[in-house]
């Protein structure tokens, strides 16, 4: 799930973006990990995550394979956390996304106490993760730094589009889609919540942060870069 590492933005812009994920290691601790992965997700619920996901089945907002025509006017935009938890049926990476450091800290404390034996990582600003570890009394084991994008960066879109698309690091949210959603919010054709929901449905592992996306769209409405 390096897909959470290269989110675009500076350290301060991640104040509402904390992805805590659990991953069993193949051949080390993946046997019998499914109930533990479910427990990990279940334990996140009291801390009000903004998304949950598993890398096989997706996040709490999913596309519908058989949509009724009338649902255009009454589309369900509520994240279905229960479907994510119930859907975990094989060893995989599961993630809980929070929009506040306090929630992430409290969740990490709970995970430590539960002693599941799974590998647990926090993906956010370096300071944010350090603070979570400090609050839980855990020294960091390893760190994977993002050095950002280099090479032919002229092929990249503007910063607001980049912030929206890189929240699905697998690249499932197209540049054109993110641009269109910014335009629709500016035109008043959709609310930031609606636009965020459309994009979140494309994220196939549930690490998209709808709260941060909504904020970025609100900013873009007034000041498109």
């Amino acid at each position, binding site marked *: *799930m390096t897909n959470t590492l290269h989110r675009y933005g500076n350290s301060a812009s991640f104040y509402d973006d904390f992805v805590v994920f659990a991953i069993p290691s193949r051949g080390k601790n993946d046997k019998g990990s499914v109930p533990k992965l479910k427990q990990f997700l279940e334990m996140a619920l009291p801390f009000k995550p903004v998304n949950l996901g598993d890398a096989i089945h997706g996040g709490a907002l999913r596309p519908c394979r058989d949509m009724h025509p009338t649902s255009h006017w009454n589309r369900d935009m509520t994240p279905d956390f229960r479907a994510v938890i119930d859907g975990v049926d094989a060893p995989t990476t599961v993630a809980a996304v929070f929009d506040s450091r306090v929630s992430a800290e409290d969740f990490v404390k709970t995970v430590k106490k539960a002693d599941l034996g799974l590998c647990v*990582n926090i993906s956010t600003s370096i300071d944010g993760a350090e603070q979570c570890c400090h609050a839980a009394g855990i020294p960091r084991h390893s760190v994977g730094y993002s050095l950002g994008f280099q090479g032919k960066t002229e092929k990249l879109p503007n910063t607001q589009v980049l912030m929206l698309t890189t929240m699905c690091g697998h690249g499932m949210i197209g540049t054109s889609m993110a641009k269109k959603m910014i335009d629709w919010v500016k035109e008043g054709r959709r609310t930031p919540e609606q636009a965020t929901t459309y994009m979140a449905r494309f994220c196939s592992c549930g690490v998209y942060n709808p709260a941060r996306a909504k904020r970025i769209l609100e900013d873009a409405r007034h000041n498109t870069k």
Partner: protein
Amino acid sequence: MNINPNKCVACGNCTYVCPMGAIYVDPVIKRATIDRNECVECFTCFHGMSQEHLNPTLVRGMRKIFQMMRLRFDPEPDVCPTAAFEPDELVWPRVVRRAFSDPRVPHESTGVQGRGTEEVKTNDVSGRVKEGEVGFTIEFGRPGVGVWFYEIQKMTSALARAGVSFEKKNPITSLMSDVPTGTLREDILNEKIMSAIVEIKVTVDRTEEIINLVREVEPQVDTVIALGVGVRCDSMGEDTVVAPILERLGYNLERAKTNIGLGKITQPESPKQEEMAGAIM
């Protein structure tokens, strides 16, 4: 991926959805069409869009009437109204496009969903990157640009010449026909993918050398590169060795994934688990 022309109503929703911008409405046939050369088989159109199963003739008729009256459509933007997308039976070598582009498909070489491996995410049980070592992830094509394998080979060849070891349980390494020279299989070189991650490990003293090498080669590579650096912290949870090197090289360290060390080994260890391809440097 295919779009069934009998079903497509040319609503254009999928043209925005495609991460590679490979879908367009053909003005001659008036149907959405996929540029197969640019398509990376990520299945975003097929899996990511919601589907209705409306009658195509009826939808086309309504669209024509609205168009004549110059009425603007305001449909849901993430919906294919006629479920027109139909996946191909992919065969070699095109099938590698999907393996490196659709995160729902695990790589046979790693068993991990996505394009990389466990990296330092499981370092607390794998011990993949030890103190005094640095693990590099060099990712090509992300975000939203894509990459051809022949471009990746420019970097793997240069890294091989520098004598680095490639992570064995990595999808790119598994596609090398000659690991010591970083040569990829010839039959995949002209395949385009969403992104791929080359993983190497070196001793800390080579950190600057590797970064400079990547910087030297990247102007020849026609895509964007995302660089990740994995390190093992000391007993206090600090990294006082690698971060200062990166900052000295001009990087502002903003974001990281932090392994908090709660993992435990619960299965007998496999001695082959941590093998690296090529010489360990």
